[in-house]
């Protein structure tokens, strides 16, 4: 029993089944990420005015590394180009070329994820510290030359530290939301390349210590959730493309048209993943 129009398009719709299926699936993904974007917007719009961390729930800015994010965006865009080049190579019957472009696509995907991992790791070692005088600072820790992750006050006590070396963040110009005037001294500090100042804080002065993890602030919650979910889609897409490019390739010999269709459908999913990032990057990194 053969399902009609699995490979050849149906005349009146001009589409083959999998193409209809993938576009429908992408429609549902638009709604999924749309819900996350509305979460982001709502949380941000209702956040109190003022700078974080002075204002406990003010919306933070400038915490994400823009050059790295930009590079990651370029990586993903490149992979979008290469996946469509892979498909067109199939249409031109150039299997080796197809394989080459698939390999680059997958490499880009993995590169994206590796860079993301480093970004995450940096966040997990970045802290907001509440001091006894009521103020809050942010910065990385230096404990015997290492930058520990996920520490809390308890870790300080367990490590029997008397004082804690903190590389305190100096407000840089990126922490001011777009549209805000930036004070002169911040411009100066940024131009001179000062990003943090070293500080030794007695542990007794520290009320609490929390890494930049989802439970620390709604910004981190939505940032990690959206980028993690997007990352899962990158991983899933990469696995499917890897399967098409390197494992399930026998179909190319027996039914090249169906194989090409599969690659096209996989490519459509991949472009959607890129699309989400095209919106996600400016929204969380830049705005």
């Amino acid at each position, binding site marked *: 029993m053969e399902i009609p129009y699995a490979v050849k398009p149906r005349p009146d719709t001009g589409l083959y089944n999998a193409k209809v299926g993938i576009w429908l699936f992408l429609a549902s993904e638009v709604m999924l990420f749309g819900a996350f974007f509305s979460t982001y917007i709502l949380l941000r719009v209702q956040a109190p005015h003022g700078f974080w961390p002075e204002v406990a729930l003010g919306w933070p800015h400038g915490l994400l590394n823009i050059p790295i994010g930009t590079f990651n965006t370029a990586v993903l865009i490149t992979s979008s180009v290469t996946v469509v080049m892979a498909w067109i190579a199939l249409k031109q019957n150039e299997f080796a070329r197809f394989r080459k472009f698939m390999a680059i696509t997958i490499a880009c995907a993995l590169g994206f994820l590796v860079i993301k991992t480093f970004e995450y790791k940096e966040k997990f070692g970045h802290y907001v510290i509440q001091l006894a005088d009521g103020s809050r600072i942010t910065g990385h820790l230096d404990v015997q030359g290492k930058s520990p992750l996920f520490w809390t006050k308890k870790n300080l006590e367990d490590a029997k530290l008397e004082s804690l070396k903190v590389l305190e963040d100096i407000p840089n110009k990126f922490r001011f939301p777009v549209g805000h005037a930036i004070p002169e001294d911040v411009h100066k500090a940024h131009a001179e390349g000062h990003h943090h100042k070293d500080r030794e804080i007695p542990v007794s002065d520290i009320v609490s210590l929390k890494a930049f993890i989802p439970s620390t602030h709604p910004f981190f919650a939505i940032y990690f959730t959206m980028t993690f979910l997007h990352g899962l889609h990158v991983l899933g897409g990469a696995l499917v493309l890897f399967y098409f490019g390197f494992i399930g390739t026998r179909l*190319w010999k027996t039914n090249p048209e169906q194989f090409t269709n599969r690659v096209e459908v996989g490519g459509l999913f991949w472009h959607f993943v890129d699309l989400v990032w095209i919106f996600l990057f400016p929204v969380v990194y830049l705005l």
Partner: protein
Amino acid sequence: MSDSKHATAPGGTGHHHSHHDYDFAAHKKVYWAVGAALLVGTVITVLAREWEFSSVALTIAVALFIATVKAFLVCAYFMHLLSERKAIYLVMATTLAFAIGMVALILFSDKDPIPGTLPKTVYVP
């Protein structure tokens, strides 16, 4: 599903797409061009941060405008939406309308609230 009924030799394709004289070279040029445009668009978005706009609304509008242009390029050319069938357009256009409607209605639902009904947030320092 994998029994090949048509006697095409392995690799024999090129007969099923809607345009019969498929100009591969031209299409490939377009893909590279779009890719370049996307990279340029990315750089512009990042640089746009340096410009100081008069209002928050304008800033957001500019950022989203650039992102929408990039998204359009991806949809139109990489995803072939420009040459795709009406059925697909209809589905995606409706979806987009619902997605935007969802975001807009959620956001507007707490504008002009009935006085005294939204919870007062108490900041616990």
